[in-house]
């Protein structure tokens, strides 16, 4: 059982490969606005070094948004064409939810991403796959207030733009492997795309 994992919703280019629900290899690096050139190439690289024939992929897990509009469309176009042409299942996840702390039970994580213009994409999720706050756009002021009001919650994501003192909040330092393990953990029937032809991104903004 070969799983291809993809995320290009933010600055990172994320390509993961799992065998029987275990991550066996990944390529992750910052590639802001270059994912269009690099992503397929990296998928090819990861297949080559693991002796995987691209036709033998059994399923795909991809982030559907929110995030960089162009970035989202890179991984989603790949997943859509891949899933359609090989007729394999595609699972779509919130690009915020994959930032959770899933290592312990009942941990809540405030997941964040820069939405520009002094705003953030935010979603709050528990490690038990419960959504506390659906993905939405808030002003950075509102986000900081929310963090201060819920000091027990973990805070996750590339939040350098908020200019917070990371020692004073419950910041989650997510490793590349954690991120990919989250994607595997969050994959379930409810995230399975029912009709690949109609798959779209979630932009949250018009």
């Amino acid at each position, binding site marked *: 059982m070969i799983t291809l994992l993809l995320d290009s919703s933010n600055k990172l280019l994320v390509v993961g490969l799992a065998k029987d629900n275990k991550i066996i290899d990944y390529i992750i690096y910052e590639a802001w606005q270059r994912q269009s*050139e690099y*992503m397929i*190439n990296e998928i*090819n690289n990861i297949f080559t070094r693991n002796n995987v024939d*691209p036709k033998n992929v059994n399923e795909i897990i991809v982030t559907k948004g929110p995030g960089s509009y*162009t970035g989202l*469309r890179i991984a989603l176009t790949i997943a859509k064409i891949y899933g359609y*042409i090989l007729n394999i299942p595609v699972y779509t996840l919130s690009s915020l939810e994959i930032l959770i702390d899933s290592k312990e039970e009942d941990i809540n994580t405030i997941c964040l991403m820069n939405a520009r213009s002094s705003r953030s994409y935010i979603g709050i999720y528990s490690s038990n796959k419960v959504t506390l706050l659906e993905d939405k756009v808030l002003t950075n002021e509102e986000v900081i207030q929310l963090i201060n009001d819920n000091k027990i919650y973990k805070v996750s994501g590339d939040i350098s733009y908020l200019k917070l003192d990371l020692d004073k909040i419950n910041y989650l330092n997510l490793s590349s492997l954690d991120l990919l393990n989250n994607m595997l953990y969050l994959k379930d029937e409810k995230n399975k795309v029912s009709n690949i032809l109609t798959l*779209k991104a979630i932009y949250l903004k018009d």
Partner: protein
Amino acid sequence: MSNMEQNKDLIILGIESSCDETAIAITINGELKANVISSQIDVHQKYGGVMPEIASRLHLENIAVVLDEALKKSGVTMEEVSAIAFTRGPGLIGALHVGLQAAKTLALIYKKPLIPVHHLAGHIYANEFIEPLLFPCLAVVVSGGNTELVYMKEHLSFEIIGETIDDAIGESYDKVARVLGLPYPGGVAIDKLAKEGEHTYKLPEPLKDNSLNVSYSGLKTAVINLVNKEKMLGHEINVPNMAKSFQDVAIKEIIDRVIRASKMYDVKEIVLAGGVSANSYLRSEIVKEFENTPIKVVIPPLWATTDNAAMICKVGEYLYKKGLFTDLSIGVDPSWKIEDYDKF
């Protein structure tokens, strides 16, 4: 038929997503087997022009539906395809990205050669669905994003000998249409109304030099200023007359340069290409101008004047024979020059 013979067929799958049409076509040995286009025109009409972000979103939504239909219509399987050709530019960057990812994904899975195609070369080669190009050839490329005279000594030889120094001709049509309260796309509306009007408004001749370049910005501004002035004076604009006056000058601008180019260069054939080549006045004027001359004029079929992937397949065939392939690290180029069609 044996497998050997089957393998001799040249099957190109073409993908076009440079602006507001998501299109995939399949040709077998040059013959068009599927030509699927999902047009977004109704959506963009509401805004009076193409909205790049909306165009990109719709490309992602439509791409697999279009691929599905193209494969079903042609009866071709991905295994049988010889190569995948795609529009690398010029065009809207976000829109180009979607077609690129689709092309690269298919190339990766099926280990097929990938052919980057210049969008305007596509429009020129669309004429080959009527008859083979005759060289040396002068291609008159007129669209919403480009206005250029391209001299072709032979196949895949492109030399820009004249171009717009500011706006594209189609862009000026769209802007003039908007100021006259006509729907998008403006070219169609102006062309239609001009037939009912007379040339009563005095507009400046855009570029008075001896080059092969054209200019449309001044003409557009002149119309806008005139419309505003008339409105301020409380005069009603006669829209058909304004459409006719504008169209006369706009088309004369390009025809004059074509005539000049045909005298400066050895040309056996003139072909029209691009969205504005659907303009009925441009078509009739250019035919009229060159009848009874040794120069042959070829007008593309109306279906090929709008964006489509059949034309991408057509160029793809020539590039395939030339062995012009790329690898999976290719990116798009929104301002790719036709002269650099083999550099990527």
